[in-house]
Every structure is written in structure tokens, then in C-alpha cells.
């Protein structure tokens, strides 16, 4: 194979691979603004001992957060799971770009699978609600929150 042919072929292969990887990541997560999986992964491993790949995106988890938050210091978040109360073990919440990605963990024992609070979001990033079920599944809902003024600086 001469050099020219080789270059053409390899360029095609690289472009194809890039396209494929873009497609799969887009399928896994319809691009959220400001996501930072590397930082999130760190927090997930620390808290849950699981990686981002172990989470299942689920319609059963409902996350209510504003799309645009004026102040990152006070972002209301509401999480509700449409699961029987005795199946939900805990609710975790993460934000991708916070220095400490874990926002809070709630262990539920006898209350309905619902939790509302206000969190700090450092900069524009997705907020992720993760519901841990009794049988060890992690169900996730994400929403990007655009922050005008950061909440941790």
C-alpha cells in the first residue's frame, strides 16, 4: 500500500470512529449543558462505589429544578420517584461541576419517595437525581441548570 492510500484509509477510519463515539455518547445522554462526567465519576465512586455507566436513566424518577437559576447559592430541587415507598432505599443528588459533586444523600425509611431541598450549584452543569432501590439499582434523572452567579465562590 502506498503512502497516499494509507493516509486516506486511516483518515476515514479515524473519522468513522469519532463519529461512532459521538453517536453513542449522544444516545446515552442527549447532551446536557456543561456536563463533566470525569468530575462526576469521582464523586460517584466515592459515595456509591459505582461508575456513571452503572446508572440507569429512568422515567420513574422525576427531578424538578429550574432551567435557569439566577443565583447558584439557592437552587430549589425536588425529587420524586414513582415507585412503592418500601422499594426506595435512598436518594442521592449530584452536580457535575461542583468541587464536591455530592450535594446530599437522604436515607428514607418509612416516608414516601419524595424529597425537596435547596442546593448550591457552582456553575452551569447538570443536576443529577439518583434513586437507590432496595434491590441495588440506581435510577437517574438529570437536568441542566444554567447558573448566572456561582454558589460556591
Amino acid at each position, binding site marked *: 500500500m502506498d503512502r497516499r492510500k494509507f493516509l486516506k484509509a486511516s483518515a476515514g477510519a479515524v473519522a468513522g470512529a469519532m463519529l461512532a463515539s459521538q453517536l453513542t455518547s449522544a444516545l446515552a445522554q442527549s447532551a446536557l449543558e456543561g456536563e463533566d462526567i470525569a468530575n462526576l465519576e469521582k464523586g460517584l465512586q466515592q459515595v456509591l462505589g459505582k461508575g456513571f455507566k452503572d446508572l440507569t436513566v429512568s422515567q420513574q424518577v422525576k427531578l424538578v429544578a429550574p432551567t435557569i437559576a439566577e443565583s447558584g447559592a439557592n437552587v430549589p430541587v425536588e425529587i420524586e420517584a414513582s415507585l412503592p415507598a418500601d422499594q426506595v432505599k435512598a436518594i442521592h443528588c449530584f452536580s457535575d461541576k461542583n468541587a464536591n459533586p455530592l450535594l*446530599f*444523600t437522604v*436515607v428514607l425509611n418509612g416516608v*414516601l419517595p*419524595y424529597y*425537596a431541598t435547596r442546593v448550591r450549584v457552582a456553575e452551569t452543569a447538570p443536576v443529577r437525581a439518583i434513586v437507590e432501590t432496595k434491590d441495588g439499582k440506581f435510577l437517574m434523572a438529570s437536568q441542566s441548570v444554567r447558573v448566572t452567579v456561582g454558589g460556591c465562590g
Partner: protein
Amino acid sequence: MPINILVRFTPAKPKAGEEVRVQIVAQHPMEPGTRRDASGKVIPADHITELNVLMDNQLIAQVKPGPGTSANPLFAFKMKASKAGQIKVTCKDLTGQTGEKTADLTLA
């Protein structure tokens, strides 16, 4: 100074079997440890690390907020009001301060 906690039920007097929303507010600055004061010094972290909600001395929920929880945080739960009882909320922060509050849940 102990941490001041407020507890409110919505509706205030639920019917038996009705869903009741329990709103808890702790008055606390929740310093995340990343902010700087006017002279550029880092304000040390001081946030609530644990908040327990007990119903008749039985733990029904435990929150572990990280530094990413707002000042004067709100913690809201929903529960089935099956019987009247006493809700007790206890919390502690990084500096070792604690707070405690009891509220009676009465049925209509």
C-alpha cells in the same frame, strides 16, 4: 448556640391516611469552605453533616447534606399520616453544634 430548627406540616391537621408534607428548615449559614471573605481569607467550612427525622423515636429519614446545600436549608418530606405522633428532628454540624426540635402531628 444551638441550631434553630423549624418544622411545619402541610396540611396542618391531615386526615387519617392523607399525604402530609413535612417541611424542616434549619437556620444555619452552611459555609461550604470555598468562599472567601473581604480580605481574601478562606472562610472555614461549617455545614450540617447529619439531620435525623424520628417519628415516635423511630428513624424515618436521615439526610447527609454535603457542602453543596444552601444556607438556611429546607428539607421537605412526604409521608402518609396514618396515626398521630411526635416528630423529632435532630441535627449536628461540623463544629459540633447540635439542634433539636419536636413537633406533634395531630390528625383532624
